[in-house]
């Protein structure tokens, strides 16, 4: 039976792993590769390495960081996000150890390139990040660089979703805040018709249980709060007993 997934998110800014609050305020946490290695040891179902400020200006993916992460020899599936400009970048990111890529700017700037990425990696390896907010007038999709918001219903017609396996629905406004994810964003699943990864303000097993009860939600991303306690991934999984998710894992050198 296919399990749902708990994704450990590591947000990187200026080479530092950071706590991010609404992508507006940041607090340093430490070295990204050390956080990734820790999530690997904790048995996260996937790890998302989210490098911010790579597309504006367009400096491309952080290959150096990917190499450092790869050198650790992690055995957890890795999703990389940040600065992917096209097919060549995507291929290189995968050759440096990522299993899947997440794209944002490329979806709007060069939708045809998304097809090229999907053709060379397989649709299963391509995820779209859609930073979304619920407004009285409906759901709005944010463009991080311009700051403009556009009705999601319109954006969907322009986005190359045929070449995407899953969508990460990011509640960017509540991102980093405890138990703040806006549940009404789930209405986006009717528009998107894609499996959803929810991220942004999700910190408790109570929220995760409620979100995973929804058929279209296949995975949950958790960021900041994973850094507050030991065995944070395992603690969430323990509380999710009964949900179709892999049980918690505690490493032992004697096994």
């Amino acid at each position: 039976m296919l399990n749902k997934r708990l994704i450990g998110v590591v947000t990187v800014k200026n080479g530092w792993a950071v706590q991010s609050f609404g992508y507006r305020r940041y607090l340093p946490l430490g070295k990204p590769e050390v956080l990734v290695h820790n999530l690997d040891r904790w048995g996260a179902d996937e790890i998302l390495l989210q490098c911010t400020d790579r597309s504006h200006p367009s400096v491309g993916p952080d290959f150096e960081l990917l190499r450092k992460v790869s050198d650790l020899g992690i055995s957890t599936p890795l999703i990389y996000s940040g600065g992917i400009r096209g097919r060549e970048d995507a291929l290189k990111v995968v050759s440096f150890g990522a299993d899947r890529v997440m794209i944002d700017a490329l979806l709007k700037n060069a939708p045809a390139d998304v097809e090229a990425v999907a053709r060379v990696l397989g649709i299963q390896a391509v995820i779209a990040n859609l930073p979304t907010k619920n407004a009285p007038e409906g759901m709005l999709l944010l463009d991080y660089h311009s700051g403009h918001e556009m009705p999601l219903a319109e954006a969907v017609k322009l986005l190359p979703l045929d070449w995407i396996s899953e969508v990460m629905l990011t509640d960017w406004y509540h991102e980093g805040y405890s138990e703040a994810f806006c549940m009404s964003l789930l209405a986006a699943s009717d528009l998107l018709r894609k499996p959803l990864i929810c991220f942004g303000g999700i910190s408790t097993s109570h929220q995760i249980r409620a979100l995973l009860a929804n058929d279209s939600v296949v995975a949950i991303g958790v960021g900041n709060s994973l850094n507050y306690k030991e065995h944070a991934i395992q603690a969430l999984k323990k509380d999710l007993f009964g949900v179709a998710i892999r049980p918690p894992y505690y490493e032992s050198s004697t096994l």
Partner: protein
Amino acid sequence: MSRKTIGIVDYGVGNHASVQRAFQALGHACRLSNEKDFLASVDVMVLPGVGAFPSAMQALHSLDMVDFIRDQASEGKAIIGLCLGMQLLAEISLEHESTKGLGLIPGTVQPLQYSACHIGWNALEVLHQDPLFMPCNRMSVYFNHSYVFEVPEIYRAARVSIDGYSYTAAVRKGNVCGLQFHPEKSQTVGKQLLNRLVEGLAHAK
């Protein structure tokens, strides 16, 4: 555990680094190569792969590796195909256009029927009591694919269930085996399976 030499076929496709590190962490000597002399000398040959079947086969042809791999298989070399590498073992694939594969195990690579992609951790159901696979029976491993390699049941070493339908998760024909999932990204279960395969296949003729 004895130290084995493992050669990862370098044909310009795929995520070799993780696979190489996984074998090295298990204590085996592991190198990426497309030199026939070296690959002929190794205990286990690994065929990795990410992406599309037609371009992968094209890359193998351009390096003149296709007949070489077929010969190695018939001579009893232990071969492990990973993900797309497993699919390349097939006779034919229907991805994009109909393309001939290595033909080491009968069967066809065809699109997943239940949805576009199979992504995530899913539990293996081991068939035929294969001792190399039995220890990971009912354990979850990580899948990330949109095509499946359907084989005659006798070559299906393990299957996996999605929405009530079952699909091939692993194949084996003597010294040649293939894994649809990513053992190098399946944490402890994956590492232990890779170790058993390296030990077991190198002795199976």
